[in-house]
């Protein structure tokens, strides 16, 4: 029996109030907020955050990694290797990308279910469009990870009862590589196609599972076509109160990450066993999984739920959002741009740079970066710390000045002067001496097309600050 061993959903800290769009762009916007990746986040860094949450929740270890996104930071070279390095997976654990289309995520999940070993499926995405357009408002940024395996690998939290997939060639949404936004065919066309595909796939999957529509406790319909998703749910026969919230008003549509994120939210919403959850994804066809929660779910500790993250965001202005997305060119800092990181140096130091692994010497001191004179490796990524002192640097180069830097003492030893991120000036007790912070994997800058990934520190969410 295969199923879900663990999951993690990650939402970036910032929220764009859709009402702020129209005043600037002259059109667009709407109600609610959408999640916005910080300037130092991309699909990979958010994927790492989700992957860490997923792996923290299980004793099982992935034997393969798949990474799905429509916004790969790199082409030609694999993005999943960065996730692999940050999660410190073994050398013999393969890492593959499934990138470009939203449906890549469903494909990666399908491959994981077909495999014979535990597979971590990570999906991260940034969705947007041109200013004032519907995709800009409807989109969201985030990531989710599912660890898929069998009951031999660890306690299954939800087991797979049936699945189906139908594929059909039609063009309702398209984007030429390099373009900032998708283009859309007349909405009714896609709605018609997807409604038929979703209905067909749902029937097939329930049939394979040997279940009736009335057995479905939660129906999740993912997909970029919002009207089609509603129509599929409405025609499914599943009562409206059993159709999962697509988080449109709180997160937005996170593209390739949406199916796993909505599944994570559904699993977190009710720990009862025996619940039948149907995950239906509409993307160039339809993919359906029928899952049933197990007794192990109740004992599963959720470290940081999707709902908790929804509740803990902070606003970002529309102007800042546009600047972060590169849609509003702003005056760069008058400092020399940083040089590209050396690939050979980064490769030698990958445990430190990507894995945040320091060292401990015979003198007991934890050193970051690690010293070649020390014998013991000390992984620091999961260790929280306390701000000893900090400074706001309005002179240093940053893609989004000012730089906030803190000297952080990590619990159990180790001090590092480290850049802070996701700092909300209004949240005063997150931004003072003695404040609690945690390491977070980020993209510091990009130079000569090389993304410089490394770790920063960010304030612990409010409920987790005791310590």
């Amino acid at each position, binding site marked *: 029996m295969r199923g879900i061993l663990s999951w993690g959903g990650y939402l970036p800290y910032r929220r764009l109030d859709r009402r702020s769009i129209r005043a600037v762009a002259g059109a667009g916007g709407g109600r609610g907020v959408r999640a916005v990746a910080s300037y130092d986040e991309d699909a990979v860094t958010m994927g790492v955050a989700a992957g860490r949450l997923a792996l923290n929740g299980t004793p099982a270890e992935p034997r393969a990694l798949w990474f799905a996104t429509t916004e790969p930071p790199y082409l030609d070279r694999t993005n999943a290797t960065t996730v692999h390095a940050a999660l410190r997976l073994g050398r013999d654990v393969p890492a593959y990308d499934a990138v470009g289309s939203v449906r890549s995520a469903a494909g990666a999940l399908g491959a994981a279910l077909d495999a014979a070993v535990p597979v971590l499926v990570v999906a991260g995405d940034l969705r947007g469009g041109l200013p004032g357009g519907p995709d800009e408002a409807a989109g969201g940024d985030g990531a989710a990870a599912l660890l898929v395996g069998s009951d031999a690998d660890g306690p299954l939290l939800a087991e797979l009862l049936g699945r189906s997939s139908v594929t059909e060639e039609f063009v309702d949404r398209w984007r030429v590589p390099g373009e900032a936004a998708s283009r859309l065919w007349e909405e009714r066309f896609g709605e018609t196609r997807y409604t038929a595909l979703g209905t067909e796939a749902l029937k097939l999957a329930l049939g394979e599972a040997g279940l009736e529509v009335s057995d479905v406790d939660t129906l999740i319909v993912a997909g970029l076509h919002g009207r089609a998703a509603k129509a599929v749910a409405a025609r499914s026969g599943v009562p409206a109160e059993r159709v999962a919230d697509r988080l449109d008003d709180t997160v937005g549509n996170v593209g390739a990450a949406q199916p796993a994120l909505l599944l994570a939210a559904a699993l977190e919403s009710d720990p009862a066993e025996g619940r039948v959850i149907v995950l239906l994804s509409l993307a160039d066809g339809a993919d359906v999984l029928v899952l049933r929660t197990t007794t192990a779910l109740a004992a599963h500790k959720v470290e940081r739920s999707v709902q908790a993250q929804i509740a803990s965001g902070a606003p970002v202005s529309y102007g800042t959002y546009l600047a972060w997305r590169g849609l509003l060119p702003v005056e760069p800092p008058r400092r020399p741009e940083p040089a590209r990181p050396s690939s050979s*140096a980064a490769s030698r130091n990958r445990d430190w740079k990507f894995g945040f692994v320091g060292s401990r010497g015979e003198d007991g001191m934890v050193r970051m970066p690690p010293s070649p004179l020390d014998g013991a490796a000390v992984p620091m990524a999961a260790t929280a710390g306390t701000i000893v*002192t900090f400074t706001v640097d309005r002179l240093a180069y940053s893609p989004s000045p000012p730089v906030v830097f803190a000297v952080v003492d990590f619990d159990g030893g180790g001090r590092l002067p480290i850049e802070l991120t996701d700092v909300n000036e209004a949240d005063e007790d997150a931004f003072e001496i003695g404040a609690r912070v945690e390491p977070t994997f980020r993209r510091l800058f990009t130079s000569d097309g090389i993304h410089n990934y490394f770790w920063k520190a960010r304030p612990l969410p409010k409920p987790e600050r005791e310590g």
Partner: protein
Amino acid sequence: MGSHGIKDRVAIVGMGCTRFTEHWDKGVDELLLASTGEAFASAGVDKEQVDAYWLGTAQSGMSGLTLSKPLRLRDKPVTRVENYCATGSEALRQAAYAVASGAYDVAMAVGVEKVKDSGYQGLNAFPIPNDGTQRTLTAAAMFSMVAPAYARRYGVDSGEMRTVLARIASKNHANGARNPRAQFRKEMSVEKLCSMPAVAGGLSVFDCAGVADGSAAAIVVRAEDAHRYTDKPLFIKALSFVAGDGSGLMDPAYDYTTFPEVATSARDAYAQAGISSPAEELAMAEVHDCFTPTELVLVEDLGLAERGTAWKRILDGAFDLDGELPVNPDGGLKSFGHPVGASGLRMMFEAWLQLRGEAPEERRISTYGSRSLALTHNLGGYPGEMVSFVSILGTE
């Protein structure tokens, strides 16, 4: 084993120093010709009579050719040295040791930096290929962390601390205003300095050293030969240099209220010079005031004030030009700017002028005539990872 120093074995017999300013019309070559020309004339020698040269520059040129080409030196040993912001002092140290060893009779130390050709404000380090995990904070931000740490440790409230830092800047600006070689020659009131907007931590632009081009040079000979070149040589009493191991950045016990490398190099220098009570014995000190909180901590690390008292002594004017122990009588990095390779030699140039009575009366130190020792202190790096140089020079 031990640090023995070269007390009274080597003397400075000639010096030169350009104005430190934005030399838009002068390059490295012109600056070097100006400072060395003045030093040659000061010692009454020509370039052929100097047996060996040391050039300090952080990033305005590589190798001895940076000096040998503009001066048209032929067949001379010319060495370029770099040691962060203590580069100029390092050049002098190497030249002095070479003479002390007996290898050469006459040696020159030159420091130069052409900072203003970068196109950016401030000092910008030459990027060395790295893994991209290095700190990107400016020096201003790193040193800004000293001020709140000091205030907390010694119970100075933030308003008072602001005044203390402004007082340091105001003193150095007042000294610089009287010095024709300084970049900034305008007095600044404490009130005005306190009202400047912060750019890094609590520091304003006026808490930071200026940015200037400049060059300075010194000629050294064996002490017994010194009077062949000048009636008033400056004897080297001590040269101390310490490179930290960088552990302050990683050590939870480090609290940003002291620079241990500086305290160590000061102890070593005082031992070499036979100084037991620096605050009473020194006539003046030129210290590395790259930022105002740096000077605050330095006067304690150098033993010029008891721990936790420097802020009060500063408010009392103890280190003013007419105070008990003038600190940065020439105006310091604050008024001179910081052409990295030249600053250490510029500090010695002030000792050269003051101890020998050549500083004009309006900017003469209060201790002139009663004390004969000067300290120069030059550091490079940041709190937690720095290099520190201390020299003691004297006329007797």
